[in-house]
């Protein structure tokens, strides 16, 4: 008998009042449909009104932790890059 390991999938969920999909974890599934079903059972606990994204872990490209300085350092030491010097109007809720 052949036994096949299911590939790993990363799960992103937008909750009912959420603005963006958030990574919530990973799980194993044979294909995308099954990953959606499994994500429903493992992560949503049937909260109505959620949106689910599943993506094969193998399809995600992450940065090399060794590149942290060239990638992120410039932002941290140039404060003028951060638009925090003016008051935000009340009406603009989420930026």
């Amino acid at each position, binding site marked *: 008998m052949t036994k096949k390991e299911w590939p790993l999938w990363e799960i992103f969920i937008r909750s009912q009042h959420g603005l963006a999909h958030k990574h919530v974890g990973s*799980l*194993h599934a*044979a294909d995308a*449909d099954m990953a959606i*079903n*499994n994500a429903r*059972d493992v992560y949503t606990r049937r909260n109505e009104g959620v949106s689910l994204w599943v993506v094969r872990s193998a399809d995600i490209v992450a940065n090399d932790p060794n590149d942290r300085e060239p990638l992120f350092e410039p932002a941290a030491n140039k404060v003028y890059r951060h638009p925090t010097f003016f008051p935000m109007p009340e009406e603009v809720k989420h930026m």
Partner: protein
Amino acid sequence: MSNEKFNYLLRLGDSTLILSQRLSEWCGKGPALEEDMALANTALDLLGQARQWLSYAGETDGMGQDEDDLAYLRNADQFANFLLVERPNGSYADTMVRQFFFDAWYHLALQKLVLSKDERIAAIAGKAAKEVRYHLRRSSDLIVRLGDGTPTSRSMIQSAVDELWPFTGEMFEADAIDLAVAEAKIGFDPSSLRSDWLSYVHSVLDEATIKMPNAEAWMQRGGKQGRHTEALSYLLAEMQSLKRAHPGAAW
């Protein structure tokens, strides 16, 4: 009428309760973590529904029985669940085929029950229908995956289908209680579901490359009338032991 309604609610409550108990036996033993969670979720959905059906049954009866009394203090011959749901778990194929047959029936049944003249029944059915739609989607999906999977998984699904088939007929047999609640428009005549059930089951088995048994085959019966297979007493002995040992205890 209240006696028929009580018995009718017991049937719904008992089938969901017993199937929930069976599925709970899988906890920690599923073929994959994800399947384990899915079975536990399904078991919890069904238990929630059983509680609602049985609570309402207890209120209808006027004997002051609550859901716990009905679940824990009745003997096998007082249970009115379908024979199908009390069948042992067997392999994962056996469990999924049992689930698929029941989900397909229950999904159709709930479509009728949401139209019930009894508001409480319609409300319970409305809530349950959402959950059962998902159960059916999942069990149908797995039947196709396993049926159309490896030669081993295919033969396991086929033999589970053949083995459980004689337990499906009972779901479509109307007796005096079914007809009385159908007449009062609080329930429905189960024979009216048969052709839809057969054609849905046929379409899924077909996709799964599984041969459908003869629809006219001889069928087991008796669950709804309290005549059960030997499997139920063992299940109840385990489920009820604590309550029986400490009657009246609160937890």
